[in-house]
């Protein structure tokens, strides 16, 4: 596998996808740091995984559900809902206008 390369454009795109605002210094640093990590993890290409299925869960469970209509013991009161909220309007959370 070839060495990873991340341009400033790539970093900005990743930052947008991650919903992060980076300073220009952070962007610069990020380029080399991410590449260093990405290069290391390429060692996985040394391992043959053809026909190996991925493990999404190490715990061997299936069909874990709850029954519709059972009592809700976790409902939050109005006070609890907003006890950590910075900006609210009446019983709503408030954000600056989005499209």
């Amino acid at each position, binding site marked *: 596998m070839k060495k990873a390369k991340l341009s400033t454009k790539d970093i900005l795109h990743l930052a947008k996808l991650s919903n992060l605002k980076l300073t220009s210094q952070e962007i610069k640093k990020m380029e080399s740091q991410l590449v260093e990590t990405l290069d290391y993890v390429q060692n996985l290409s040394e391992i043959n995984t053809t026909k190996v299925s991925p493990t999404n869960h190490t715990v061997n469970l299936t069909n874990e559900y709850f029954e519709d209509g059972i009592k809700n013991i976790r409902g939050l009161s109005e006070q609890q809902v907003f*006890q950590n909220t910075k900006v609210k309007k009446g019983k709503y959370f408030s954000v600056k206008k989005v499209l």
Partner: protein
Amino acid sequence: MKLLGKSITELLELLKNKEISEQDLFNYFVKREKKYNSSLNAFLSLEERPKQAKKGVLSGLPIAFKDNFCTKDIKTTAGSKILENFNPPYSATVVERLENAGAAVLGKTNMDAWAHGSSTETSDFGPTKNPWDLKRAPGGSSGGSAAAMAAYLTPAAIGSETAGSIRQPAAWCGVVGLKPTYGRVSRYGVIAMGSSLDCPGPITSTVEDAALLLKLIAGKDQFDATTTPNEVPDYTKLLKKPRKMTIGIPEDYFEGVDEEVKRKIFEAIEVLKKLGHGIKKVKLISPKYAISVYTIIQRSEVSSNLARYDSIRFGNDRTHFGQEAKRRMMLGTYTLSHGYYDAFYKKAQQVRTLIVEDYKKTFKEVDVIISSTTPTTALKLGEFEKYPFFGEVMDMLNEPAAIAGVPAISIPVGLDKNTLPVGLQIIGNYFKEEDILNLAGQFEKETGFFGIHSQLLKKYPD
């Protein structure tokens, strides 16, 4: 009456015989925290007095919780400025189970922000110092819990491990740390880092204490779909029956380990041999691949789990994330993104399958696997900045077990020439916590862990 250094079991005996009251016991630890926390920074928040404790087997025992466990109406920060004033309206299942057993929340301990680290230095509230040497790190991310336990600012602590975050600080601080099988203990209410990896677990001074706490927190939780209905064994009872085991020693897990640490591990293996256990060489997939698997899976899950911190319903805005968190999110976004998913995330999950099969195969030949918990003893503060994926490299001996989901325990087996603790880890098969506890308990009975804990406490008198 001398309380310093007493185990949970001993304290519970005193409480039962009314030789000390719940209130006095709580105050004892509050006093010690007030005396030593400013130099250790193990606690982020302290409860001045206990909440009305419920009646239960733990009868008012104070317990410290890593600050990623939601504790209702007690500030919970995950070590990050994003949650610096977060007051959860609910408690984690682990907290509730211990409270229902009679425990009282003593305080919340320091951690690497979002559990992203192996030294507690990335906490937004200052690093925790290693009680053995204040210029060194206690390990992480459960550094606060391990340091508090080691310096006896708490009789017991609860931490969490994604890969090494319980075992490694336990090793660097000279205490016992247990990572249960993934799915053994509920994650509900534990601020998520790596959803397919996170395991809450006890950090204690004795093996029996770890067994007791595990018994109380383990078991199916209706609010966590990844917990198993497997019956919870009576771990403390099973400890009383020492068993002979076949111990696997993986060659590859000794690569890159300091000479002194290796020496202490070999000495410990001799002790186990003398106790009659069989030793067998085993071959496991090299930890250098585990580093890659873990880095990819963990960072991918991190990028997803930190998406909810948008400051609309709670918390400060995303500019408050520290550098480490940002770096991990960016990497994780990359490894999940379109065009890269197959080469990174999927590939990592495939190698994960091979690691799981590797352990399963090995556990057919041996009962447990032993190695050093960490490649070195506690590093000096500031060393971590040299590496962009410091945590993952430091934890390379812990990652395979974490990736596979098998249980593992770290116990103190000696001190190096700098008087820093060396930890040995015992890795067991799925849901065989009783095996690793059993072997650890035998070692403790035989050696008393070489008096390591009481040696440290000489530096931290009442």
